[in-house]
């Protein structure tokens, strides 16, 4: 009985892991980079300097709103998180305009001067790609991601049952032993970061909870719209008793609004401010805290923007929503400091390697058992080609995304879109190239291409900006230096892997001989 349970779990592990495997690789890869999305965003906007927001900058923001956005329905301010070089972003919807007419201005957080910043989707795209994919409707993408995540949970749990020797083999990693070393690499990356894998998969499903299971909210609230209305109540309004305002009241300065809101929070800082109906007696300011605490409150504070009177603090979430928030916080890791963020990143990298090594292991395990290894069947060849095309292709695509950020002309229309297209064009090119080449050569060449592309990123950065690796190191700018060093480390890892694959001598001869002997004996 025990043996059959293990066998059935092994079967489940193989297929629940393989079928969504390529999508899982993409989810893990982009999700891992998304832990550093703000830092990557900073690198992709080299015009910005890292600085805390000053009162002077906020005063200039006030003046800019009054001069250029009077009559707008709402104003909003995004404050830098402090993690990277970010702008103080002001935006507003002109009166009568829709969301697509929204105007946006980026200010230097130290001086408040307007900065011209290249158009780029930055680190935010990598984050969105992680669960919304690209070029297909968001809702389809989310269903696909949901199914993949469910399969991942099944694969993890069945994997634990299958590899019951994981504790006996806990520290074992053998290189240069063919199938054995692939299995070890898969086990080590899976087992060492197992708490992370379980947590990230489960909390990922919680983040997509209402895509997957809208019925609970539907049953309790009637519809999803009613649920969202209750979960995110609209800003309170000022019950104005006057028929017509005597005169347009003066709005409190932004710095005062921020100070009053932050006095309500224990240590949390304001990250987003929205002012509804600015310039009228009904103007209401909503201030949202950042997500710097695990499970920290995300309730806005509402103020009368003219008088500064408190209007409300949003509903305190119930136990269910508070639990969901902690889980989503755990998933996104926004609360983590630099140390913990690196641990998140390394665990994510282990997850990415786990998925990739699992996919490769599928082919390695079956190659020896093929009836004729020189002419494998269609399914085998499909898996083999998808492995190279997706693993190496998407990896190379990210490097090209960074290169495109530096190389595309600043004035190019739809520049941010073209950065993203570049990623997929490179991915497609590697995919096509790898189909046309013998398998082993395809791996070596695709990995070598990754190494070259990642090594090019810091070089192109040094040539196209003033913030190359050496000046960044001298200036102690760890966002830029860290990014460039991470690129070089990735290039080295790709180069090393390519070299390992190229110099590996397949040891299939003895095995074939024993099988021949067996066949003769039979």
């Amino acid at each position, binding site marked *: 009985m025990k043996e059959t349970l293990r066998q059935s779990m092994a079967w489940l592990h193989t297929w629940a892991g393989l079928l969504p495997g390529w999508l899982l690789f993409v989810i893990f890869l982009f999700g891992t980079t998304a832990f550093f999305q703000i830092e990557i965003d900073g690198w992709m906007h080299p015009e910005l300097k890292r600085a805390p927001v000053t009162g002077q900058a906020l005063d200039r923001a006030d003046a800019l709103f009054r001069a250029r956005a009077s009559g707008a329905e709402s104003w909003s301010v995004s404050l830098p998180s402090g993690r990277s070089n970010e702008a103080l972003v002001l935006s507003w919807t002109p009166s009568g305009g829709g969301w697509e007419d929204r105007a946006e201005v980026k200010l230097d957080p130290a001086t408040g001067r307007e900065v011209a910043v290249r158009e780029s989707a930055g680190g935010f795209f990598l984050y969105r790609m992680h669960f919304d994919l690209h070029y297909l409707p968001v809702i389809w993408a989310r269903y696909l991601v949901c199914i993949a995540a469910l399969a991942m949970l099944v694969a993890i749990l069945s994997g634990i049952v299958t590899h019951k020797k994981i504790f*006996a083999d*806990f*520290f*074992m*990693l*053998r*290189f240069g032993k063919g199938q054995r070393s692939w299995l070890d690499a898969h086990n*080590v990356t899976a087992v*060492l*970061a197992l*708490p*992370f894998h379980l*947590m990230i998969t489960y909390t990922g499903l919680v983040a997509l909870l209402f895509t997957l299971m809208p019925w609970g909210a539907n049953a309790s609230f009637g519809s999803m719209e009613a649920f969202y209305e209750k979960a995110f109540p609209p800003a309170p309004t000022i019950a104005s008793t006057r028929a017509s305002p005597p005169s347009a009241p003066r709005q409190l300065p932004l710095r005062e609004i921020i100070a009053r809101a932050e006095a309500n929070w224990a240590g949390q800082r304001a990250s987003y401010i929205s002012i509804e109906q600015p310039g009228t007696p009904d103007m209401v300011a909503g201030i949202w805290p950042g997500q710097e605490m*695990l*499970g920290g409150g995300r309730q806005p504070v509402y103020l009368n923007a003219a008088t500064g009177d408190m209007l409300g603090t949003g509903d305190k979430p119930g136990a269910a929503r508070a639990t969901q928030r*902690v889980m989503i916080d*755990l998933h996104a890791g926004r*609360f*983590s400091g630099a*140390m*913990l963020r690196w*641990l*998140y990143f*390394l*665990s994510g990298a*282990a997850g990415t390697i786990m998925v990739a090594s699992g996919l490769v292991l599928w082919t390695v395990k079956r190659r020896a058992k093929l009836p004729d290894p020189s002419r494998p069947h269609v399914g085998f060849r499909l898996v083999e080609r998808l492995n190279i095309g997706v693993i190496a292709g998407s990896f190379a695509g990210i490097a090209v995304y960074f290169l495109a950020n530096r190389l595309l002309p600043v004035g190019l229309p739809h520049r941010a879109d073209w950065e993203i297209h570049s990623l997929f064009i490179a991915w497609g090119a590697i995919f096509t190239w790898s189909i046309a080449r013998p398998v082993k050569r395809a791996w070596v060449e695709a990995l070598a291409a990754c190494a070259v592309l990642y090594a090019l990123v810091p070089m192109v950065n040094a040539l196209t900006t003033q913030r190359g690796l050496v000046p960044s190191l001298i200036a102690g700018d760890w966002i830029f230096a860290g990014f460039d060093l991470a690129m070089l480390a990735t290039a080295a890892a790709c180069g090393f892997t390519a070299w390992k694959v190229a110099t590996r001598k397949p040891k299939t001869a003895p095995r074939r001989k024993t099988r021949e002997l067996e066949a003769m004996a039979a």
Partner: protein
Amino acid sequence: MIHAAIFLLSLAGFALLLLAMGRHQQDWLRRKLPAGGSRALHLSGLLMLALAFVIAGAGLGWGYGAVAWFGWMTAAAALIVAANLNRDRILRRVRP
């Protein structure tokens, strides 16, 4: 500082757990330890990990500390695996 303490304790914990396993004793110590010795190593390894958890929780808050503890345990175990992978090279340097 707290992070360093969690990491070093986890590292020591996993090193002890490694040495508590028969097959690794053969590799690293060239002999198998008696069952009592292995059990003592095993228990002290687990104790180190538990201590790391307590320090993480007390120093960083129990929620944040728990996340950091898992992260550092992964990092420490990975380092021990890397050391085990390069065993021959390390042993040659320690006792030529």
